[in-house]
């Protein structure tokens, strides 16, 4: 039948002695390990080198452009928002408005059916700002 079209069944079992099997596997493991790592390490080096070249080229390109057309200095950026100083001097203090907003969001998530009690609201130690988090979420949503 069509099996013959797929391929003749090959010699599967018992042709090799135990030592031949050992040698064959050691050969494949060693070659595989060395070649895969060697090729990928080579790629790492090359990526690093060309990234460095590209970024240097682009940086110098930008510098040259700047020299050619000196722009007027931009008006000083708005002063960075100073860390909120709270009445009790506690940097972890969460303003009441924020607690109200969080409570509202929690209530919406629970569908307003269940009674929800919020025991504490703590400032998280997140390194990203809310905007950065929103950006990350936006980028990772397709996955």
């Amino acid at each position: 039948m069509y099996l013959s079209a797929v391929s003749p069944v090959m010699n599967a079992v018992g042709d090799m002695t135990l030592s031949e099997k050992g040698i064959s596997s050691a050969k494949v493991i060693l070659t595989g390990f060395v070649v895969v790592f060697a090729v990928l390490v080579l790629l790492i080096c090359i990526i690093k080198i060309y990234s460095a070249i590209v970024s240097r080229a682009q940086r110098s390109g930008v510098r040259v452009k700047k020299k050619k057309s000196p722009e007027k200095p931009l008006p000083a950026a708005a002063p960075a928002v100073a860390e909120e100083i709270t009445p009790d001097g506690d940097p972890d203090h969460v303003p009441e408005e924020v607690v109200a907003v969080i409570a509202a969001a929690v209530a919406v998530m629970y569908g307003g059916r269940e009674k929800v009690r919020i025991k504490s609201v703590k400032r998280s130690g997140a390194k990203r700002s809310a905007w950065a988090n929103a950006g990350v979420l936006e980028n990772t949503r397709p996955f």
Partner: protein
Amino acid sequence: MEIINGFLDAVKGIYESSGLVNLNWQNYAMIAISCVLLYLAIKKQYEPLLLLPIAFGMLLVNLYPDIMSPPNVELLTQQQADAAGFNTAGHAAQVINGVTYYENPTYGGLLYYLYQGVKLGIYPPLIFLGIGCMTDFGPLIANPKSLILGAAAQIGIFVTFTGAIFLGFAENEAGAIGIIGGADGPTAIYVTTKLAPHLLGSIAIAAYSYMALVPIIQPPIMKLLTTKKERSVVMEQLRPVSKLEKILFPIIVVIIIAIFLPDAAPLVGMLMLGNLFKESGVVDRIAKAAQNELMNIITIFLGVTVGATASGTNFLKLDTIKIIVLGLIAFCMGTAFGVLFGKIMYKLTGGKINPLIGSAGVSAVPMAARVSQKVGQQENPGNFLLMHAMGPNVAGVIGSAVAAGVLLNVVG
């Protein structure tokens, strides 16, 4: 009377050619298995884009085995030709032992022709073309060290090769079984068609099943091998990668891999061509066609015909069970080695790398990266590992293609 006899003969002919007479118990068992797979694809949505066509191909070939039959040439004597109503004029004749036989070519089954794309190694590289169009190598370029994790996850392939050899498989078969550990369907199919085509059905089904089961198989291994502290590492944000770097990447990678490992060139070449379509930004139409229409069409052909290699007599063997077990071992080992190398990198970088991204070194894009993200968030809900895990994940695609090249070279 003649009419009734003709009618009875026709009914008899139909009955004799029907599955009721021609199918054996293995076919019925496979029909049942394919129905279970259809259920898993439709109801449980386990990789339905692949599992559904595979399961249906399996169903079709077991209902009507001739759908995979190759073209043939039947030899008929003049008498037989007359009896069959076959006009011998214009047909080639052979004389064997003084008897003239006329050649009557028969055509192959539908799936036999579609299967040629698998057999000749055409479909897997075309799928890679589409994958290339959809892949963003940015995270890998930003953090090239993740290539190490993509390489580490391939160790499972070679260790499983040993297991398969000692279980009595021939070298070429062991190579094809080991590649399941790469968790890359097209690569597994490509290597199997070159090394051990008779195992294609079981290997493809094992590979795709484990890829669908990534979210179930990987987390326990990841948790077992890492401490809570390691899992909660928050990684630094990746640097932005310029467009020029992204455009140069596919060109450089293909040059290096094709020079050093020509056997991997068809897979890596197509992957990088697709990626260049995407990153160059000048062939938008082609990029869209490659990742949508072309990829969808090839997926249909590949799925149905791979499923159709799983005929009852071919699939229901002890070897299939061995392959499925070895495949699982390969997969778990790949995950484990990825995580272990992640731990080494955690130590070497002074705790900057979360070892969980190591498990994404098995290809299975983007599922494995999603699993790293999920397990990381179980420890720290504010931790976003996804983009960091995409680095090893796409490195895994390159890594398994390189591993495939090694296997083809060493045991092919």
